[in-house]
C-alpha cells in the first residue's frame, strides 16, 4: 500500500514535470502580424552628399559676406576688398578707403550697396564702413588669434577681378614691415594680390581670424590679427571719420 502511493506520487511528479517541461519546449503561438512596420521617424538618416553646400542661392557663406570696394579718388581709381561683420558694417583697410571722393561697394552677385559713413583707425590699417543697404551675410569672429600651422582661407577680389577664395596656413607672427599697425601682425602663405587688401582671413570653421592688408616680396600675405581688430572695435575712440580727397 505505501509503495503504490509512492509510485503514484512519482508518476504524478513525472506528468507534472513533463507538462511543465513540455510547455517550455513547445513553441509559443505567433504574435499577430502588425498592420504597418514602417517606423514613423527614420533613424540615423544621414543627409544627402553635398547637402552642407546648400545656401539660399548656391553661394557659400564666405562668398556672400565678401564685398568689392571701388575707391573713386579725386584723380585716380583703386579697388579693394572688404567683408561684413554685421548687417550694416563692413571692415576693410584704411589704405583702401584713403583719399576717397566716393566709395562704391558691390556684393558677390553684383548688387550695389549704398555706403554711409566711413571711419579709419589711427593705430592699424583698418577701416569701418557703414552701409545703409543691408549686407547679405556676415561671419562670426573667432575666439582667439590663430596658431602657427592653422589653416587660413582668404576671400576677396585680387586685382579688382573676380571673387576668389585662396587657402594657406598661418606661418607665424612678425613685426609689421610697413609700420602701419601697432604690435605684431600675422604672416600666412595664402596667395593674395593688390586688390585683396581688406579681405577676410577665415579659419577652418569660417570665422574671421584676421584682415589681409599687404603682400610680402616673397609672395606671402600679411594680416591684421583678430585681436587687433577686436581691440579697435571695442575702443570707441579708435576710429575717426575718414578724410576724403
Amino acid at each position: 500500500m505505501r509503495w503504490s502511493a509512492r509510485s503514484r506520487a512519482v508518476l504524478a511528479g513525472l506528468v507534472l514535470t513533463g507538462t511543465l517541461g513540455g510547455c517550455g519546449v513547445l513553441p509559443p503561438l505567433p504574435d499577430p502580424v502588425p498592420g504597418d512596420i514602417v517606423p514613423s521617424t527614420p533613424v540615423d538618416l544621414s543627409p544627402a552628399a553635398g547637402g552642407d553646400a546648400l545656401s539660399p542661392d548656391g553661394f557659400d557663406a564666405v562668398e556672400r559676406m565678401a564685398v568689392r570696394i571701388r575707391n573713386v579718388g579725386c584723380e585716380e581709381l583703386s579697388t579693394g576688398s572688404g567683408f561684413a561683420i554685421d548687417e550694416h558694417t563692413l571692415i576693410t583697410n584704411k589704405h583702401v578707403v584713403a583719399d576717397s571722393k566716393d566709395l562704391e561697394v558691390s556684393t558677390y552677385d553684383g548688387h550695389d550697396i549704398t555706403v554711409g559713413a566711413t571711419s579709419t583707425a589711427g593705430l592699424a590699417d583698418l577701416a569701418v564702413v557703414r552701409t545703409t543697404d543691408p549686407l547679405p551675410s556676415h561671419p562670426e569672429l573667432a575666439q582667439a588669434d590663430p596658431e602657427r600651422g592653422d589653416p587660413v582661407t582668404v576671400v576677396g577680389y585680387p586685382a579688382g577681378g573676380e571673387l576668389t577664395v585662396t587657402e594657406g596656413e598661418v606661418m607665424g607672427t612678425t613685426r609689421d614691415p610697413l609700420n602701419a599697425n601697432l604690435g605684431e601682425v600675422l604672416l600666412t602663405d595664402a596667395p593674395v594680390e593688390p586688390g585683396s587688401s581688406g579681405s577676410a582671413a577665415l579659419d577652418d570653421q569660417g570665422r574671421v581670424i584676421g584682415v589681409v592688408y599687404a603682400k610680402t616680396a616673397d609672395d606671402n600675405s600679411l594680416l591684421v590679427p583678430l585681436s587687433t581688430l577686436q581691440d579697435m572695435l571695442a575702443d570707441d575712440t579708435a576710429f575717426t571719420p575718414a578724410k576724403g580727397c
Partner: protein
Amino acid sequence: MTEAPVVAAPEPERAPRRRRGGSRVLAIVLVATIAVGAYLWLTTVRWQRTATEWETKAHGYADEVASLRLQLDGANAELKAARDQLSTATSRITDLANEKAQLGDENVASQQYLDYQTQVSAAAATVASALGQCVSGQEQLVGYLKEADQYEPADLARYEREVNALCADAEDANEALQRELRQ
C-alpha cells in the same frame, strides 16, 4: 490464551488496483499527448498563417522598395542636374558681377579722364586767350611806338612793362600746359 493465527492480506486483491492505477496513468498520458498534439497543430496552423502574412507583407515592401529605388535614382539624377545647373548659374553670376564691376571701373576711369580732358581744354583755352591778349598788347605797343612822339615816354614804358608781364604770364601758362600734356 490461544493466539489467533496471523492472516496475511490476500494477494489476489493487489493486481486489480495496480491495473487501475496504470490505466489512470495511461489515460492521463493519453490526454496530455492529445492536448500537446492539439496545441502543436494549432501552433503550426497559426505560424503558417503568420508566415504567409509576413511573406505577403515582405513582397509588398519589396515592391515598394523597388519603386522607391527607381524614384530615388530619378531624384538623384535630377538633383545632380540641378546642382550642375546651380553651379553653372553661380559661375555665370560671378562672371556677370565681375563684368559689371569692370565696366564700372572703366566708366569711372573714363569719367575721370573726361574730367581731366575738360580741365586741360579749359586750361588750353585760358592759355590761348592769354597768348592772344599778349599778341594784341604787343601789336598795340608796336602801333604806339610807331607814333612815339605823340605819347609820353613814361606812359609808353609803363605800357611796355604791362605787355611784357602779360606775355610772360601767358608763356608761363603755356609752358605749364605743355608740361601737363607731355605727362
